């Protein structure tokens, strides 16, 4: 359970981080997924670029109607209320149930999203929000809708050479309705089925079904949704039943 040898680099600024990435380095945020993968030798990078010390990597900024969450913001910071308002309350509830506190102290929202483990919490929850992932490349920043950011199992819309810089989410009204359910046999373990639903006033309810063996399923308008029809493609009967339960629970929870 020891990693294969790798070199370690700590870029001091974003151009240095992008240059390391261009040279083939594996970016590392909090290292709470990559760390175990290194130990298990599922990942054997020649060089790791530690993003944690980059200026502005962590932190939350309110910019008018948008809230920009630095990709390096930890789950624990979000759990402890780093994001203000109704949005912050929703995200804090999600963050509290990610893995365990010692993991949340280092694991980050951006690292988790960019890693794109299908069972991960932010992968399951963020597509429900009308927001963007902010990617940084050699050309500057570009915005990718969160509903289209994760494209498959451990696959994202990030192009080679791009880093996830921030998550931009809208300020939510207090009347925003939110429902989230995930199934874990033990608190903190990987989810076996996750669903969530966000209903904003004057907008159709958005629903996400995740922890599948594909990218999360995003339903832009869940009005009149038939949960059974949505899970027919899940071949394993146990997982299909769990997914169905997750859908029913969030639809009931948001009613």
């Amino acid at each position, binding site marked *: *359970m*020891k*990693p*294969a*040898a*790798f*070199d*370690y680099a*700590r870029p001091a600024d974003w151009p240095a981080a992008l240059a390391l990435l261009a040279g083939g380095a594996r970016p*590392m945020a909090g*290292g*709470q997924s990559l*760390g*175990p993968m*290194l*130990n*298990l030798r599922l990942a054997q990078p020649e060089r*790791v670029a*530690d993003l*944690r010390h980059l200026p502005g990597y962590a932190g939350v900024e309110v910019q008018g109607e948008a809230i920009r969450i630095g990709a390096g913001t930890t789950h*624990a910071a979000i759990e402890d209320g780093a994001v203000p308002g109704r949005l912050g309350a929703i995200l804090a509830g999600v963050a509290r149930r990610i*893995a*365990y*506190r*010692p*993991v949340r*102290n*280092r694991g980050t929202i951006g690292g988790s999203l960019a890693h794109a483990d299908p069972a991960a919490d932010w992968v399951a929850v963020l597509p429900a929000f009308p927001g963007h992932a902010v990617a940084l490349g050699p050309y500057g920043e570009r915005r990718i809708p969160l509903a289209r950011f994760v494209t498959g199992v451990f696959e994202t819309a990030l192009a080679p050479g791009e880093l996830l810089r921030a998550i931009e989410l809208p300020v939510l009204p207090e009347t925003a309705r939110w429902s989230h359910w995930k199934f874990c046999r*033990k*608190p*903190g373990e990987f989810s076996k089925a996750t669903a969530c639903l966000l209903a904003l006033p004057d907008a159709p309810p958005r629903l996400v079904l995740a922890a599948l063996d594909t990218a999360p399923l995003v339903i832009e308008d869940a009005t009149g949704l038939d949960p059974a029809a949505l899970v027919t493609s899940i071949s394993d009967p146990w997982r299909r039943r769990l997914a169905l339960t997750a859908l029913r629970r969030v639809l009931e929870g948001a009613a």
Partner: protein
Amino acid sequence: MTRRPITLTVNGRAETVLAEPRTHLADLLRGELLLTGTHIGCEHGVCGACTVEVDGAPARSCILHAGACEGSGIRTIEGFDADPVMAALREAFSAEHALQCGYCTPGMLVTARDIVLRLPEADEARVREELAGNLCRCTGYRGIVHAILRVLAERRAT
């Protein structure tokens, strides 16, 4: 990969050790600094035995590698001798039979201290939820949960 000097603070002492970037913090503490109170269980971040404080917050030392520790402040179980919350927890662990083999205990204590300080109003359900990341194969957790609840109650009473 060759070893390189890593400078960090451990239990209040500045240390410079030679380590490969891939060496994880638990091995660094045990092998280079002979601080064997930190125990290694699963070595992939699941069991919690290796939990130490990194820059003031609990973290898994088995999935944190030497390079990333450069400049960090580490506090291991050996660094809590004079800490009053840890003293109360040690007493309570003893009184409530919260350990048998002791393998999980250093990680349990670091997690328990974080629960006591961060969640002073925690009830039994919350303590159990917060402890879910620390595995014990002897006690069935009852004694550990009771020990933490005892310290929480003592602190609320004063």
